[in-house]
């Protein structure tokens, strides 16, 4: 088969068509420090500048032969658009992602998300940077698919008021929590559609705040599953559902969300028992993730040989494509990462 471009390869992967070689891509952050340095950018400056965001993402994909360009990189944009101040750690020499040090709403009763927030969130800074960044990528690197992502409503709720209040609210103020989750769900549908309209080629819904080491599977089923399904159903495909943390008890429900919403794939992090998940979901489910985003590409002690072996284990674990189980840590060891990419392309190809 003639060599495919990254966008052709990824599109065919979603369509389950034959490929020239296995894809290597992500639906979450995949930004690399060597690429940022090559462009002369500082890490804190790439989060709130559409051009830098786009160029850093493109350069990361090109430099390390990744099949997709992914934006954004941080999880604070929506919360900032709703009026919270963020820390960019501009003076730090370390890699620190933006955070929300203090949240303007201290209690669930104070949360006030207006219809204007829901309908016009993309007009508010910094959300308005995202479509701009996607358009730059489409213009500068049309051979790459653009990956966009959104946090799920529960995790987003925890980005807007303190997570412990939300967790306790599940029991103490259930109706209030449900109302807020519904408002966030509407907002997330709108944001996802705006990103897809701007040119994103696929989208991942990430809901790490509901892993089974935080919430019970019963609460997931009652409170979370219907909303994740509704959000995914509100977007055009391809679309992926990802949950970090303990997911073994949630696997069936996650896949049911995909079936009910027309989503293509589920994605897990390293805490998932991949072989068991495959047994539960069968060969028709597209399973992604379970790739250690720190230990394999970044840890000083991990040798090239160990990284290769771990990727082989990931492939033997029956993932449909090698896809990092979370945001990739930017400070990669270049030799490890290149060996990982080579292994993905060649092992069992």
């Amino acid at each position: 088969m003639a060599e495919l471009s990254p966008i052709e390869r990824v599109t065919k992967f979603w369509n389950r068509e034959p490929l020239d070689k296995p894809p290597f891509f992500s639906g979450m952050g995949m930004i690399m420090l060597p690429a940022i340095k090559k462009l002369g950018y500082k890490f804190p400056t790439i989060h709130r500048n559409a051009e830098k965001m786009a160029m850093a993402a493109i350069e990361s994909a090109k430099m390390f032969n990744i099949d997709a360009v992914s934006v954004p990189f941080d999880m604070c944009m929506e919360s900032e658009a709703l009026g919270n101040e963020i820390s960019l750690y501009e003076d730090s020499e370390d890699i620190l992602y933006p955070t929300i040090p203090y949240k303007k709403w201290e209690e669930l009763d104070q949360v006030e998300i207006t219809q204007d927030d829901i309908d016009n969130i993309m007009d508010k800074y910094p959300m308005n940077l995202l479509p701009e960044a996607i358009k730059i990528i489409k213009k500068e690197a049309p051979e790459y698919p653009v990956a966009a992502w959104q946090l799920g409503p529960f995790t987003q709720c925890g980005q807007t008021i303190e997570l412990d209040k939300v967790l306790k609210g599940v029991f103490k103020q259930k109706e209030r929590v449900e109302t807020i989750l519904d408002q966030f769900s509407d907002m997330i549908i709108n944001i996802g559609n705006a990103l897809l309209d701007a040119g994103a080629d696929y989208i991942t819904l990430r809901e790490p705040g509901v892993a089974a080491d935080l919430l019970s599977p019963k609460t997931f089923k009652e409170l979370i599953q219907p909303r994740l399904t509704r959000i995914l159903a509100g977007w055009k495909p391809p679309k992926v559902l990802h949950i970090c943390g303990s997911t073994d008890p949630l696997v069936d429900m996650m896949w049911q969300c995909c079936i009910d919403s027309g989503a293509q794939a589920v994605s897990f992090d390293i805490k998932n028992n991949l072989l068991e998940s495959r047994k539960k979901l069968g060969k028709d489910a597209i399973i992604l993730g379970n790739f250690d985003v720190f230990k394999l590409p970044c840890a000083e002690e991990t040798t090239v040989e160990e990284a290769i072996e771990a990727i082989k284990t990931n492939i033997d674990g029956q993932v449909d494509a090698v896809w990092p189980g979370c945001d990739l840590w930017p400070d990669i060891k270049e030799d490890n990462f290149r060996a990982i990419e080579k292994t993905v392309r060649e092992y069992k190809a």
Partner: protein
Amino acid sequence: MATKEELLEILKDGVINYKEEEVKEASQTALDDGHTAIEMIMDGLAAGMEVVGDLYEKQEYFVPEVLMCADALYAGLEILRPHVPKQEGGSVSQVVIGSIQGDVHDIGKNLVKMMFDVAGWEVYDLGRDVPLEKFVEEQLRTDAQVVAMSAMMTTTMLGMRKVIKMIKEKNPNVAIMLGGAPVTKDVANLFGADGYAESAGNAVAEGIKMISRLREYEKEKGE
């Protein structure tokens, strides 16, 4: 008038079933009736939390329930703790605790802190988003035997490695405990930590084990 056993049972049950008001009331009654505060804490509140730990391990309780139990426990602790006599002559174990810079999540850290509080440790809570150097400064200032750090995100846990290196360079005997969602046993080993708490429930047990190891080390050094 409730007996001591009845009050202990109310405190224990109040923590397990997150009944803050009943815990407050029973704590005050216990003091008014002349019962020993430390007994009420250890055999009432802490005994309840032990059951909560079991329920969490068995996945009958999850984090929201544990947080509500913690609220009930603290409601009692606030009333009883001021009435626990200070140890005379003996040194109280000390821990410096915080969420690492870049991480504003503190649920896990607060649960671990609670365990140390119950066990009677002197806790220096640095809060969250704590600059790396602050852990080192606070350990040196307080001479704490344990430094406990948590990170909820993969993107922040790397700071822990730097803190461990800085602390061990200045004081190799300090025991370091790590915890948080992305922290696995492999990561703790890789970073050179002495203990690893995948849940708040085993954090104090790990802390006590580490202190024992430290004392053994000191003893061996002296021989």
